[in-house]
């Protein structure tokens, strides 16, 4: 093969490559624009004056930036309480998951014991059941215990709902650690709990971050648990709060979209600061790496 043909081939390839790249950009940008539309529209609606919200004609960019809706959600609605309740419950759920999850995950990945298969199957099964099926008897149980409308009920329920995923993910992260590390520590006389606290936890920090973020978002986003287990402002969470903008005579779209944007902020923050861990957490188990 002469150098000339090689050069022309190289040129043809790069030309084709350019065309392919351009097509990739165009297609992906169109898909992305469609996917982002609901979010962009939410943000745009939240900063519009009322006349523009109640318009049958398409107005893409708001003519005037209005922050009334953001004031209204705190002044006319109980957004502050919803956010506070949700943060408290989320904090509780992350704490319990981070304390209870690692030892369980460690047991699942480092020991073989009688009933191991049953536990493993149970964890997968818990991912399958419709939550409606559980929430109904849970409502009866919590109302018998007089725990409805308490943070405790919400934290306990959410903790249990998140634990199977937490254990499942942490188990995979621990399995990735070289066994010699904790074996040698155990030979030196450290107790299992000591090994977990001093050796395992520092090494699976990315895993803990991923599971904490996933547990946070799942709790933050949940409607069903708060819908059934709380019916006073004392414990209502933000997802249920959004439904309070549906009024008798219609939906208060301005304040609702403002509240929606506020609810969306943690999602954006976590996606941008922890994208790699999030993806790892979401795909772990499905793909062998």
């Amino acid at each position, binding site marked *: 093969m002469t150098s000339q043909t090689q050069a022309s081939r190289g040129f043809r390839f790069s030309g084709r490559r350019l065309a392919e790249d351009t097509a990739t950009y165009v297609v992906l940008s169109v898909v992305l624009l469609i996917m982002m539309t609901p979010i962009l529209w939410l943000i745009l609606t939240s900063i519009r004056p009322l006349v523009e919200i109640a318009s049958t004609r398409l107005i893409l960019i708001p003519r005037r930036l209005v922050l009334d809706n953001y004031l209204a959600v705190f002044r006319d609605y109980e957004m502050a309480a919803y956010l506070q309740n949700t943060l408290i419950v989320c904090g509780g759920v992350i704490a319990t998951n981070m304390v209870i999850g690692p030892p369980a995950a460690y047991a699942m990945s480092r020991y073989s014991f009688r009933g191991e298969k049953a536990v493993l199957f149970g964890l997968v099964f818990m991912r399958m059941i*419709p939550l409606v099926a559980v929430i109904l008897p849970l409502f009866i149980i919590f109302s018998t215990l007089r725990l409805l409308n308490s943070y405790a009920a919400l934290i306990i329920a959410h903790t249990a709902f998140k634990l199977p995923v937490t254990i499942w993910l942490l188990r995979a992260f621990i399995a990735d650690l070289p066994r010699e590390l904790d074996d040698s520590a155990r030979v030196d006389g450290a107790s299992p709990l000591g090994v977990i606290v001093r050796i395992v936890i520092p090494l699976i920090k990315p895993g803990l971050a991923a599971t904490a973020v996933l547990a946070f978002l799942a709790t933050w986003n949940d409607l069903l648990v708060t819908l059934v287990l709380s019916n006073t402002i004392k414990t209502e969470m933000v997802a249920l709060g959004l439904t309070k903008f549906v009024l008798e005579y219609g939906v208060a779209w301005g304040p609702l979209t403002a509240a929606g944007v506020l609810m969306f902020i943690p999602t954006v923050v976590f996606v941008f600061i922890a994208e790699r861990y999030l993806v790892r957490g979401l795909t772990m188990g499905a793909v062998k790496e």
Partner: protein
Amino acid sequence: MAGPAENRIIGIESRREHITLRSRLDAWQARYAPYWLLLPALGIIGAVLLYPLVHALYISFLDYKLARSARPFVGLGNYIEAVTSASFGTVLAQNIIFAVVCILVEFTVAMSTALLLNRQFRGRAIYRVFFLLPMLTAPVLAGFNWRWIFNDRFGLMNQIFIGVGLAPQAWLVEPNLARLSIVIATVWQGIPFVMILMLAGLQALPQPPFEAAIVDGATAWQRLRLLTLPLMRPVIAVALALRIIDLFRVFDVIYIMTLGGPGHATELLPFYIYRAAFSQSQFGLASALSWITVFITIVMLIPLFLNERSGAESEKLNA
């Protein structure tokens, strides 16, 4: 506990005793360690998930209405009532069709997008980050987003329709349009999830077969059909299983967008169960419906599981 210095003073005899005691303790710990390490987790999962499930099973055999204190045993009465009622058949069929349509749309779009995102190009990471946003949006918020877009008077969809000279539509009122709206809201969250799994699968593919295929002159389409898809089978199976499970758990979007209406047009199983329990306060019937849903989900996953197992077996044989 005796420190090392103390041991030295006490002498060799008791030290040996200490060691045997300690090793016995170690043996005990090692033997039962997995159990006590798991105990808190299993305790709370048992109390909050497993026990209620079993309790639901028990309730499903009772004529359990919240307002009434008498709860007579009715055997399979609730199950018979559930299965024979006309609305259950409609809702079940609707949920199955809904799941099939969503899965077809999600996997087609997600696979195409993942194949594009798997190419090396500048700015890839940014696209990938933004694609995550819809799936991590609260389903409640997704429901409201789309309810607003499909609003018949001021919604974006009708604004666009009027803008291009089409008649505005009653999106959430006309049964088939309402079904379409629900599917759109659901796949909006499902596509990114499937896409992320597919992308991870693509990135984990072994390179040599593809290099060999290129040398042999296989076209891109052939490589996709004969190499990528078969090699991706385990990932696709997991994604399918997770989506089937979740598409039989869709609640928030229905609750926010249509409340199952118009009529039963967009009613899916979880919302149907919720209504039986909390609007009609028929807890017995609702519990029976819950268990029927669990059963149906498992039945749907069996072929997938068996297929995957036989696939793994034959792979093992080939290797």
